[in-house]
């Protein structure tokens, strides 16, 4: 039933000399057979990938998100106008020249959409990244060290958690007036890490006391190896999922800020497009091509990320796989 495992060239061993005193009763162990039967490097990764590719939620989510990313990345190469250029006739519906039509001022909606996608992904990546890094660092240290450090970090986490982040963001954006996309992402990241920290802390805390950690110790495995081979893999999937959620959350927060007019002034974003569309009464004028693409874009990206997250849960958790 079990497949024969292949040879491994990079089998990590606990250190030379320790194994030398090995082998009670194993006389004829040839050097050829030494490493045979070890785990394939990345064997688990491969299996995870296999299940990921078979999971419709993950596949659909990833295709949508990557599709938008691709448009954002290579789109500019096909554009003839900058987002703010008065490129053509005002209020033109979609046509061959302007696939998403034009705004009241004759700006190319598609050009704006592509630029907006880029800043949307930037906000997601940066904002999600910042909060993930802060949250994981704090959560991991608090959970692993415990004691006084844990109490202090927990207090900090709870303080930031009860601060109404969105309100603070509005105030900061309005008064400090820093209006570049990376800055906005940074602010968002700085206020959305607490729940990550709490979740990561709880995970670490519970993992730290699980018996399989002790069992690994009983197998003569060092702390580094235990963290790498037992603790971290349990978290990777979770951390990855957390990042996916943070990514979506940052995008949504940024879009909301943009929409209420607190977005970047020197860049285009999907939220800003909607803000302008509303400001110039695109709804009343029936310029659906102005607000549908950004609205749909945000909805699809964030929605796909959440669906992907649900799928990933099934992929990473073998208990959910069979269902």
């Amino acid at each position, binding site marked *: 039933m079990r497949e024969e495992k292949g040879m491994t060239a990079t089998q990590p061993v606990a250190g030379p000399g*320790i194994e030398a005193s090995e082998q009670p009763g194993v006389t004829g162990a040839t050097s050829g057979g030494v490493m045979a039967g070890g785990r394939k490097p990345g064997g688990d990764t491969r299996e995870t990938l296999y299940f990921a590719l078979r999971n419709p939620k993950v596949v659909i989510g990833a295709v949508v998100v990557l599709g938008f990313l691709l448009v954002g990345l290579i789109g500019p190469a096909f554009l003839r106008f900058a987002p703010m250029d008065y490129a053509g006739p005002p209020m033109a519906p979609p046509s061959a020249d302007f696939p998403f039509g034009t705004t009241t001022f004759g700006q190319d909606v598609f050009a704006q959409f592509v630029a907006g996608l880029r800043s949307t992904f930037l906000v997601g990546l940066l904002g999600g990244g910042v909060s993930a890094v802060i949250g994981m660092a704090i959560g991991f240290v608090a959970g692993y060290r415990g004691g006084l450090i844990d109490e202090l970090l927990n207090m900090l986490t709870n303080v930031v958690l009860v601060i109404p982040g969105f309100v603070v963001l509005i105030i900061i954006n309005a008064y400090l007036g820093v209006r570049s996309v990376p800055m906005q992402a940074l602010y968002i990241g700085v206020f959305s890490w607490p729940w990550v920290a709490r979740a990561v802390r709880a995970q670490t805390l519970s993992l730290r006391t699980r018996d*399989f950690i002790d069992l690994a110790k009983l197998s003569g495995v060092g702390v580094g190896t235990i963290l790498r081979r037992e603790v971290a*893999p349990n978290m990777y999937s979770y951390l990855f999922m957390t990042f996916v959620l943070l990514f979506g959350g940052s995008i949504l927060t940024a879009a909301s800020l943009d929409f209420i007019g607190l977005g970047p002034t020197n860049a285009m974003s999907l939220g800003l497009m909607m803000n302008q569309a509303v400001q110039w009464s695109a709804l009343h004028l029936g310029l659906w091509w102005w607000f549908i693409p950004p609205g749909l874009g945000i909805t699809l990206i964030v929605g796909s990320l959440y669906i992907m997250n649900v799928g990933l849960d099934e992929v990473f958790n073998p208990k959910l796989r069979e269902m």
Partner: protein
Amino acid sequence: MLTLTQLDKVYKTGTFGSSDLHAVRQVSLDVQRGEVVSLIGESGSGKSTIGKMVLHLLDSTGGSITFDGRDVTKLGFRARRDYYRKVQGVFQDPFSSFNPIYKVDRAFETLRRSYFPRVSSADWRKRLEDALGAVTLEPDDILGKFPHQLSGGQLQRLLIARALLLDIELLVADEIISMLDASTRIDVLNLLGELKGRGLGILFVTHDLSLGNYVSDRVVILYKGRVVERGDTSAVFDDPLHPYTRDLLASVPHLDRTWEEVEVEEAERTERLAGRCLYHEAVAGDGASDGGEVPDGVGLVEHAPGHFVGCFRKAAEEPCPAA
């Protein structure tokens, strides 16, 4: 072989470690080769805590643990690796003893990577099958499965098999048959007997008195972290002295005697021991004024050869009934 001397464990609990939980108090016991010693006590009496300290998984707060005369409370990484070659444990909770994201094989693979990197695949497979056979498991039914796909009893037996793969001298078995059904239970008990015959020492942790009676050469009765009575199994079970032990035994059915006989015997014993404390009588009788070595209420006196009993108070904080 294994000797615990006045072992203490205090857990720091509460906010900022404000309160202490004295889980193990001045516990002294020993396990010899080819002997099963049962550690009996109710839930929360500190049995697992003692087991984990013996396995060097928890730091003790005071006292010493020696193995073949060597102090094992402070071991470096290498010394610890060597220690685990001789001393292994099976934990109480089989479900948390396996990393849920990996197949159960990995627990064995970890052991192999660590201690037997030079054993050939075929040879290892053979050893594995032997070990699994010893705990009446079918390798093909078990290997390649995830922990959640196996029953608690199967996992528990896997853990025993894992310990058997090493040529150990001492096994700490924490409630290892709690999840086994009657038929496998007897198999595992017989296996323990066989191991004992081969010279293995076993520290058998259980809350089940009749089980302790069945398997062990000596018993240690633990109450709230304190040893209240210990000695040869027959001595303790035939003539329980401490009120707690007597309470415990009163609730166990005897196969060889009728209920009335037991009642009569216990009534007689109650009459003989009521209002007394053999510990303090013995200490006073010795005229031992240097009783300051052991804090009051946690020491033991040898009532009969090989039969030790502690002060008749129940919890260590309570006053002695004879005082």
